């Protein structure tokens, strides 16, 4: 295990360089997230925020050219996206994908059972699954009718994001990445989602919150904030950094 200052790391990113279509996006990112911590990554559009979350989750059109990513004590860069998920990484998508013809229940049950199987637990039958999922639906104030609809099809922006958080609560990851979860949400939906996330926080779970605005950070309070500019973290600080950014924008950090 990677032990620093007596703590086990949840996520360790060292000198990460990544590119897409021969275009360099991440140019040496270093980040350490401990269990129980919530880190926010802020930055302008095109700074590399979404690339970072996609590279951690394992999207294969990004090429890692240098550096490494560890989950706890293992390097994950050669893992498939499914292995990363089964090991406890979850990303709430900025743009959740519509899957026509596959109903939400079927999808959620398949995902949960894949995880249970991986962990050596007994797979849930339909009744067992419904019991689990009803509870989570309540937490997010979601209509059970959602379950019968094809995944994200015909969902409003807010419904899609709620569906992402529903998946998070169902799969119980140890590292959750929220990629622009606040975009497209009205204030009521934002509060419901924030409450869901806050209830999910505990000393063993870590969060990486990717956001453009500090709006979300009023409801979900991070322990640390990092500013990403042109593929590098140029400044890190406590939650007060968000207010400073709101006041001054990003320009003062440009080199």
């Amino acid at each position: 295990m990677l032990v620093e200052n007596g703590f086990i790391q949840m996520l360790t990113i060292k000198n990460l360089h990544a590119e897409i279509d021969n275009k360099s996006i991440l140019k040496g990112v270093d980040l350490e997230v401990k269990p129980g911590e919530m880190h926010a990554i802020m930055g302008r559009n095109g700074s590399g925020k979404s690339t970072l979350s996609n590279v951690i989750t394992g999207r294969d059109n990004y090429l890692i050219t240098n550096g490494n990513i560890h989950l706890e004590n293992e390097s994950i860069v050669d893992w498939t996206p499914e292995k990363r998920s089964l090991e406890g990484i979850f990303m709430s998508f900025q743009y959740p994908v519509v899957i026509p013809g596959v109903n939400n229940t079927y999808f959620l049950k398949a995902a949960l059972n894949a995880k249970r199987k991986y962990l050596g637990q007994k797979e849930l039958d339909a009744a067992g699954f419904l019991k689990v999922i009803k509870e989570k639906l309540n937490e997010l104030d979601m209509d059970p009718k959602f379950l019968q609809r094809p995944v994200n099809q015909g969902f409003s922006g807010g419904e899609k994001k709620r569906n992402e958080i529903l998946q998070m609560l169902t799969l119980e990851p140890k590292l959750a990445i929220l990629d622009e979860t606040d975009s497209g949400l009205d204030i009521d939906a934002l509060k419901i989602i924030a409450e869901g996330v806050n209830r999910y926080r505990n000393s063993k779970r870590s969060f990486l919150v990717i956001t453009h605005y500090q709006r979300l950070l009023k409801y979900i309070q991070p322990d640390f904030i990092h500013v990403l500019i042109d593929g590098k973290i140029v400044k890190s600080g406590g939650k007060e950094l968000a207010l400073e950014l709101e006041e001054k924008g990003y320009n003062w950090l440009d080199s």
Partner: protein
Amino acid sequence: MKVENFQSEFEKVLNKTNFSKKFKPIQEKAFHQFLDTGLPSKKWEDWRFTKLNKFSKTLYKVSETEHSQITDFNFSKHHISDVSTLTFFNGHYKKEFSDHIPEIEIIDGLIDSKHKEEISSPTDSPFELLNTAFMDSSFNIFTKKNQILEKPIRFLIVRSSEDKLIVSPKINIKLEENSELTLIEHHVGESSNFFINTSTHAQLLDNSKLRHIRIQSNSDSTINFSNIDVNQNQNSQYDFFQFASGPELSRLNIHTKLNGQGAECSLNGLSLSSSSQQLGAHIITNHFSPNCISKQNFKNILQDKSSGIFNGKTIVNIDAQKTDSKQSNKNLLLSKDAIMNSNPQLEIYADDVKCSHGSTTGSLDEEALFYLRSRGLSLDRARNLLVRGFATELFDIIKHESTKSFISDRFENWLKKNAS
């Protein structure tokens, strides 16, 4: 098989001692017309993409009495519960493997038709004519007024022989006013090179309803052609669904004529192809009267070097005002070598109509695959789920539960073999 090779086989048809002489003049007439028309070539617009080389190269023989002997065919594999089944083996009706259905008349050589209806081939399509000339079994279904047949009637059409046989069943359906019927054509076959050429004629009188399901799971070396001709009176409804995972080459021809006001037809198909199979659908919906509704919804999933054809045409004639017509063809390519020929067409001569058509062909959505994998599903599972999602909406058309689950099972089997 070339046109000249049919002559000697046709003589065998005429000399069959077990077949009613009554049809001879019709058969002879059709055969002469067939000789005049000739076989289609690539120059025929509607036959441009159909791979006829195998057909041209093979010498087929008519099915004789000796081919009606069932040796070791596994029927249990093809069992569908809660249907009445009539079995045809190499073109011969097998009473001992059939349920008794008083509503059905079977002409199998030995039994003469009680009905006066003439067996006709109203089109000049060569294979329709060939079917009439070589007709070896025929089933007539004539409902009574207001008769609702709850239990589906299934024709189990089996081919199993070492010989290269040509089999030509003819199905005649007439639904009287307010009557309803579900017909399942179930094509199976484990044998070698076969040519099955079916012709179906249906006449739907006022307010009648025909649900027609074709399950086509022939062996990989079979050729299966089917000509379906439907005439619809006022407020009648024709619902068609084909599930095809076989054979090597198939061509489905449907021509529906909406002759009476308020008639509806819904034509749907799912074709699953792999290796070098070619599954084609050639569909014509012809609106002749006002206020009719039509739908064409065909999907192909193509693996390996297989190919597919969708030639769909909706014609809205000048009197067919207030027509509501939708046409859709969506195709999923699971391999770089698969080819789909899609040609949706609309011909509109009336001015107050609602018509739409569209066609898409593409491979699995990479974004969706990543999304599913990021939730812990393996690449195979994710692919499988997306392919299933693409196809299964079509199964909702099937109202008969055991048939629906039979077809979904076949679909799942195909997925296991071809999409993971």
